[in-house]
Every structure is written in C-alpha cells, then in structure tokens.
C-alpha cells in the first residue's frame, strides 16, 4: 500500500509512512515550543511583578536604553523570519540553490542581530549599568547620562538616587537574563541552520521530505516572536 513511501531513504523504521513521520515531527516541535513559552514565561512573570512594584525605576531604566538599536534589530529579525519562510518554501518546491541561499541570508541577518546586541551590551558595561558591585545608575547630584523628557525628570525627582540604584538593578538583571537567553536561542538556531544548510546543499531535501527545514523554521519564528515581546517590554513601554 505504501510501497512508494516505504522506499524513501529518510523514512525511519518506527514509522509506517512519510506523512506519519512528518506529523510526528510537527507535533513534537510544537510541544517543544510550548515548553519554550513556559521557559520564557517565568521571566515574564518576574518582569510583570517587578514592573508593578517599581514602576518609576522600570520606566527610567527603560528610557536609558537606546531605542535605535532595538528598532534596527526588530527590523533585522523580522527580515530574517521572511528569509526563513522563503527557505522553507524553496525546499518545498525543490529549489535546492534557493533554499541554501535563503538559509544563508537568514544566518547573516541573525549574526547582524547578535552583533548589534554586542554593541548594546558593551555600552551598558561602559556605563556601569550591569548589576553587581560596580553598578551605578544615577550619581547623586549629577545629570543622568541619558536623555530624559519632562515626565522622566519628574520621576527622577520623586525618587531618591539611592532607591533607584537598588531597584533599577532588578530591571537590568531581567534585561540581561531575557535578552541573553534570547541571544543564546539565536546562537543555537544559527548552529542548527549550519547543519540544515549543509544538508540542503547535499540535496537531502525535496518536496517529499523537507521536515528539518520546516522545523528549523518553526524554531526560528518562535525566537523571533520572543523578541517581538521583549522589544516593547524592555525598550518601548512608557519611555519618557
């Protein structure tokens, strides 16, 4: 009955048909992404709690982050989701070279994102905005090192420098943990894509079997969506 499918070299022994194998992979990947949602969920929970408790500190700390880099990275990452989708599409319609090209484009965009992240982190280190003993957000009697609007100035005046230097550390602890884990996911994604690109180059994929490309795509889009939540939470809300 499945004579044709059973001969496909990619069919593993525990499966009866290629479609059973593919459906299993898809379900498995979605279950894994569900795990990832809960993984990041713990951080979002902590963010929500502390943002409610330390509203002023979070607004001021958020304002100290350069919006340009975040915006640029958002565009880069959405672009990489597009190239990833095109890679999956190319694999599906048997276009080997296009698959490889779009995968490489995705990896390049991912690397650009990480490069921008390095610039941002370096900036934070330079200004002692990394939590720990060296941390200094506001020096009493000095102007803050970042631009503030009238509302931001009001927030700055109604909180003591001492209390801001304590509670903004929670913001930056979350900032580094969240963006750090997100970046780690991107590095894993790029590593995964190196293997997939090599497999695509070797001609392993066809319209009958391109599951690994599609699964990497699902993963990459998920990582993208995490950033779509991180960007407004860390950079945008209530900047003043």
């Amino acid at each position, binding site marked *: 009955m499945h004579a044709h499918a059973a001969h496909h070299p990619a069919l593993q*022994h525990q499966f009866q048909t290629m479609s059973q194998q593919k*459906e*299993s992979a898809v379900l498995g990947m979605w*279950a894994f992404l569900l795990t990832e949602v809960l*993984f990041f969920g*713990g951080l979002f929970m902590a963010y929500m709690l502390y943002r409610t408790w330390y509203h002023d500190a979070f607004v001021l700390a958020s304002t100290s982050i350069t919006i340009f880099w975040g915006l640029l990275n958002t565009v880069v990452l959405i672009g990489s989701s597009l190239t990833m989708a095109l890679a999956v599409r190319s694999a599906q319609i048997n276009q080997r070279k296009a698959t490889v090209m779009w995968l490489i484009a995705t990896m390049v965009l991912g690397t650009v994102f990480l490069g921008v992240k390095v610039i941002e982190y370096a900036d934070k280190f330079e200004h002692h905005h990394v939590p720990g003993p060296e941390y200094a957000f506001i020096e009493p009697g000095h102007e803050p090192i970042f631009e503030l609007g009238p509302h931001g100035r009001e927030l700055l005046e109604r909180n003591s420098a001492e209390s801001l230097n304590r509670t903004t*550390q929670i913001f930056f*602890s979350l900032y580094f943990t969240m963006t750090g884990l997100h970046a780690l996911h991107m590095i894993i994604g790029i590593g995964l894509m190196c293997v997939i690109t090599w497999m695509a180059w070797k001609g392993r994929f066809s319209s009958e079997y391109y599951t690994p490309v599609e699964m990497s795509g699902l993963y990459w889009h998920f990582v993208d969506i995490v950033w779509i939540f991180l960007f407004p939470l860390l950079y945008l809300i209530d900047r003043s």
Partner: protein
Amino acid sequence: MDAIRTIPATHYLNNGHGLASWLLTKDHKRIAIMYLVTISFFFFLGGLMAAGIRLELATPQGDFVAADTYNKMFTLHGVIMVFFFLIPSIPAVLGNFLIPPMIGARDLAFPRINLLSYYLYLVGGMFTLGAMLSGGVDTGWTFYTPYSAAASNTSVIPTALGVFIAGFSSILTGLNFIVTIHRMRAPGMTWFRLPLFVWAHYATSLIQVLGTPVIAITIVMLGVERAFGFGIFDPARGGDPVLFQHLFWFYSHPAVYIMILPALGVMSELIANFSKKKIFGYSFVAFSSLAIAVFGFIVWAHHMFVSGISVYAAMVFSFLSFSVAIPSAVKVFNWTATLYKGAISFETPMLYAYGFMGLFAIGGLTGLFLATLGTDIHMHDTYFVVAHFHYIMVGGAIMGYLGGLHFWWPKMTGRMYSEFLSRISAILVFVGFNLTFFPQFIVGYLGMPRRYHAYPDEFQVLNVLSSAGASVLGLGYLLPVIYFVYSLKRGEVAGPNPWGASGLEWEIPSPPPTENFAVIPRVTTEPYEFTPHVARERELV
C-alpha cells in the same frame, strides 16, 4: 501450555553484543534497561543518605554527624531521590519499555531523542555527584533564596545545574511520549482502548512538558544571581524571595504528580489484571489522570501558607488543594469496585498494589490536613509533613514502581523471579515503611521540626521506632536486587504471558524482539477483556 514457555532465539537483549550496542542503542527497551540500572544506582545513593539521617536521629543528641553534615545529607537525599530517582523512575523505565508495545508501535516516535534524554539525565546526575564529592550542598532540595543565592558557601551551582540538565531529559521524555501516543497507535487502538497505564503517562507527560521549563528558568535566575551578582530575588535590592518560592513550587508541586501519576497507571493495570476483571469506570479513571494533572498546576501556593502570601490567596489555594482529592478518590474507589467480585489473587505485584492502596489513601488524606489553613500553621515544617509526602512518594510512587517492576519483569527478561522471596520482600517493604513513617506523623504533630540533627529527649521513642523501620525497609529494598539478578540466569522461563494478563505487550514474546511486532497488530477489542477461558485457566493453576 509448556510448549509456549520458551525464550525466543533472538530478542532485544541478544540482538547486538558489546558495550557500544548498548551505549549507542536507539531501541526503547534497551534504553529502559540502561535507565533501570542508572536509577537503581541513584536510589541506592539516596538511600545511603537516608540511612545516615535515620542513624543520626536514633539518639536525641547530634552525636553521629555535625549539623552541617546533616544538612548536606538531607539535601542530597532530597535532590537525588526527587530529581534522579522518583521523577524518571516509572516513566523512563516502565513507560519507555512498555508504551510502544502497549499501543502497537515499533518504537517511540523519536528514538534518538530518547537516547539523548538518557544521556542528559546521566550528565545531570554526574554534576550532582560532582557537587556531592566537592563538599556537598546544604540548601535543602528546595534551594530557597536568599540563602541559596547569597549565604550558602556550598556547591549550589553544580547541583542546580545538574537538576537543570536532568530537567531537559524529563521534558524530552514527556514530549516523546505525547507524540508517540498521538501518532503511533496501531490501527484500531483508539484513545478509549488505550491501557490506563498509557493514559496516566500521557497526563504525566503534559506536566513534564509544561512544568519543567518553569523550574529550569527559576534555576537560571538563581544561577545568574549567585554567579554574576544579579538581583532578581535579592531583598537588599528590592527583589522578592517569595517570587522564587512561587516559581519553584509552580513546577515542584506538579512534580509530585509526575511521580505519583505513573504509579496510579501501574495500579490500574495491576488491579484489573489480578482480579481478571474489566476495570470499573474506565473513562473516569482515564480522565481522573488528566484532572490530577490540571488541578496539580493550580495548588502550588499551599506550600507557602506561612511564607507571607495574602490570606485571600491562601484561602483560594487551600480550597483548590482540596479539589485534588476528588480525582484521586475516583481512582481508589474505582479500583475497589474493580476488586469487588473479581477473581482476586495474591501474587507479588498485587501485594504491592494492596499496599499502595492503603498507603496512598493515608498519604492523600493527611494531605487534606495540610491543605487546611489552620492545621497547616501548626504542622508546617514538622515531621507531619515529612511523613505525609513520604506516604505519597515512597508509599505511593515507589510501591507502584516496584509493583510494576515485578509485574513486567518476566516481559523484560523472559524469566520469573522467586515468588517466595518476592512476597517476603513486599511484606517487608510494607511493614518497614509503616514503621518508619507512621511514628513521624505523631512526632510531627507533637511539634518536632524537620531538618534538625538533634531533638528533645521526649521524642526519642518514636524516632527509634522510625529508625528501626528504616532498616526493615532497607532490607525490603535490597532483597529484590538479589532475586532479580538471580532470575536472569536461573529463573523459570516465563513465556509471553505468565499472568494471563490482557494488553498488546503480553501478545509478543518475552523478551520481545527489537522491532516488537513483526506485523503491526490491528486492535479489535476493548481494553481489559478477560475471556472466561483465561480466567478459568488461572483458577485451575
């Protein structure tokens, strides 16, 4: 009938020789055996720590070990038993071995991920062992901040990292089971023809996939705080240690159900098969597993009634905690109804099942005392709590694990063990267990706090009873090692179905061939169909 009782010429155990054929295997049955060996090692290690604890508590003075050493002993006992024995025990050994044959599949959906999952578990275990050898850790298995983040000068990070890595093993096992149960069922094996063991593992897997990532991220937050001086839970910078407790218990309470649900699944199999009767209320038993998994996620704060959460939150969580009793009781009542007018017998697996029912009932009912706000304030952090959760974890989960191991041992090895010795060991475990933990209810109610290496003189009698019980229990656990190992070479040949049990796994040879089924079966009958013929034959024997 004797003609059938032979060991097949090739089976999964002799299909491939040498160390590499085991260490690189993708066969779910071999991976299950590797888990069996490894978790037995961790069980032994956790048991040694328990022995040290009971030895110290035999006298009121802290005379056997120093207070610091005692702290490290109970921490490692907890960490090893929870994360490296109980959580993987039934799913990784019995679930791994049995789910594919039970649903008529050749393997799990992802055999390579299954092997990866074993190695993640092993690496996680090695980290924790490393932490143990490099001086141990003294935070308790709960890793509460701020002590764990800022004060403790023991190996917190390696231990937590070990738990983190083992967590991914647990997630991948659960994920593999979910996909396998959805996509790999043989033709005719509908959801409501699945053995209840499989339903229980499905519910367990949901918790593993949804709960474990939360403890993973909690460990990450603790790790960055301890390693880099970040301040997420640090009260000095406005952080909230209670948030750590919320996140920790959001996983660690459902984790209790990761331990007990598979045991409940084993119980349903044992009770139906040893009363030779269709299980009473199949769909209720199946859905009660899912209900336990769902309720398990909304009761976590009952661990924190005295941690400073709001009274209203505590009231809601108290009420919700009671609700877990409903599906749990559904199971016990349905098992009892199954036994009623069944052809009941008293083989070793069934002795464990009887023991389980009693101990699980006591463990569950004392849970209600602790879910009640007023009584919990009296009993919180006393030995009453220790006794309660050991009735569930040891009296429940381990009894279920041992019962299942005795039931499916002939399937896994093709040989029977000594019926006489195994009954003795089942009785020793039951008696030893009660002697160890029942006195702890009393001593806890009287006010003895947990986690101290010394106590007032008036508690000595009960503690000596408990220590004496622990030695009986230890003997009950060692005995199976002897007769199981002996049975491997000398045991009577079991044949495909020594118990006259129902289920697809009993229709294939013992030990099964690597591919389980030469031809994928077509299922046409309901679960737990016992023909009068089979039942009568057992009576005659």
